[in-house]
């Protein structure tokens, strides 16, 4: 592992919010390194700064200070149009509530990131269908999101995240809106994607979900703890009580 190049390098990242006249330190000097091919879970309760951190990793927001190298590119100083390009090319998003565009069919939703890359219609349709094939939904390509179950919609969302072959998949509570059986299916897909070499960052508050990853980090009160494993073991011993809601 030591020889593998890091894809994400975060050093001393800080972020503050003004909330009702009060300054909230959402991230306090957070440092994290993620290597290519990693499957990492970031676990933390709501209000821990987990969402803020996800927005930072996902290039949806910019840190106040600190360094963020993504694929050896410094993100912190980028303009919003450059960030849009980074999001498009480097990150595949998987959201809790799927975030499908309701009036577009499954394959059209999967095509979206490719459209913003300026790809030709025939080519992007081919790539989108190939991506749907990967998640086993090629047969539903022309269904609207409303005609698909939650699990199927999330698989379409995964296909959309995969369509542009981004180096990183960023999943924010991907199973949060699904029942346990469907959740297992989604996590199985993510595991197999990791085996195929995709770097996966999974953000969750659910231990069962988090333990799918080979590495678990914990975020609490805006600080990141690398002791995900130890803490995980403690939590297992203490059973339900320690589970973070």
């Amino acid at each position, binding site marked *: 592992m030591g020889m593998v190049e890091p894809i994400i390098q975060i050093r001393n990242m800080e972020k503050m919010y003004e909330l009702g006249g009060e300054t909230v330190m959402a991230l306090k000097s957070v440092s994290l390194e993620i290597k290519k091919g990693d499957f990492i879970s970031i676990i933390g309760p709501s209000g821990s700064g987990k969402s803020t951190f996800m927005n930072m990793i996902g290039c949806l927001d910019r840190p106040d200070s600190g360094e963020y190298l993504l694929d050896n590119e410094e993100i912190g100083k980028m303009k919003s149009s450059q960030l849009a390009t980074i999001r498009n090319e480097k990150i595949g998003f998987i959201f809790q509530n799927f*975030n499908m*565009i309701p009036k577009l069919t499954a394959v059209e939703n999967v095509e979206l990131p490719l459209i*913003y890359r300026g790809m030709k219609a025939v080519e992007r349709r081919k790539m989108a269908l190939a991506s749907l094939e990967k998640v086993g939904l090629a047969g539903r390509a022309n269904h609207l999101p409303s005609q698909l179950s939650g699990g199927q919609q999330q698989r379409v969302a995964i296909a*959309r995240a995969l369509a542009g072959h981004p180096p990183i998949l960023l999943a924010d509570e991907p199973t949060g809106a699904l029942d346990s059986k469907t959740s297992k299916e989604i996590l199985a897909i993510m595991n197999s994607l990791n085996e195929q070499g995709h770097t996966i960052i999974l953000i969750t508050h659910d231990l069962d979900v988090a333990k799918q990853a080979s590495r678990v980090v914990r975020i609490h009160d805006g600080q990141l703890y690398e002791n995900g494993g130890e803490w995980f073991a403690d939590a297992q011993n203490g059973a339900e009580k320690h589970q973070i809601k």
Partner: protein
Amino acid sequence: MLGIIIGVSSVIVMVAIGQGSTKDVQDQMGSLGTNVLTVSVTGSDVTFKEEDAEQIKDVNGIEGIAPTVSGRITAKSGKTTTQVSMIGTTSSYLDVRDLQLQSGRFIADLDHENHSKIAVLGSDTAQTLFGLGDPVGESIKVNGTSYKVVGVLESVGSSLGTSGDSTIIVPLSTGQRLASTTNIGTTYVKVENEDTINFVSSRIESTMYSIIGDADSYSVSSQKDLMETASSVNETMTLMLGGSAAISLIVGGIGIMNIMLVSVSERTKEIGIRKAIGAKRKNILLQFLIEAIVLSSSGGIIGVGIGVVSAQIYTVVTGATIAYSIPVMLLSFGFSLLVGVVFGVFPANKASKLDPIQALRYE
């Protein structure tokens, strides 16, 4: 969309009707001949007799004159009675006014000298009194006295709301009796050359002044003058019709504006999703711009189509003339497009500036 369709189509229909009636009037007035001058004596206490009218003939460049007296009479045939306008005139009237006979003959000089009780009917009068039968040789009662019908005129259509066909023409002397006046009201003058009409007109003016001596008691006008007056009246009407239709177009524009504003706020989440997966601001703007153009231009095209079809229906049903105005069509179409684009892009621009996180959280 519906608003813009109604707005565009009503502008097109209104303007088509307005311009159609202008064209109608121009055609009719043109058909009366542009080489004819009308000399009207308007003063009530002046005398202008047939002999006075004859003096106009001495003016250079005149081909012929037709002095007339006019009034309204009741004509009766069998059980049918109708109110028509009576014109008492001389034999030259037919040529001066450029009229055609449908059947029979026109008034002769002899009829005038003899005060003959004969009549030439306008085509409408003939139809009202005799239906499809030939009135020539029949007799009618004019204000209770029996007259013999000697001829029927071809239809000339109506102008300025006066039918040229609901008339009855009698010899001048007979007409003077019916109208109880020997004063000549209107004299029609046909000039030899259309190009000299203004010149002839001013010479007639001076002749008239020497006869009557009061410049306010007579007028000399050409068909062109009348045409210009009528056209300006019609243009005002077109403007009014078009103006009220333009208001409905503006209302339609407000409708489009509403649709656009609602659609952008409804779709904030979509904008968030698109931005999260890599759409730049300009992509979002372009998307809404294209949608606005498609929406408002298709509304505009449908509006033009419905406008043309309704104007056609109008002309078929009422028989009125219509004239399409291409600039008005382009203008109303352009307006709908402009409104759609302005009000489509304005809120989209605002939405495209949203932080993707905030837009994503929007429910």
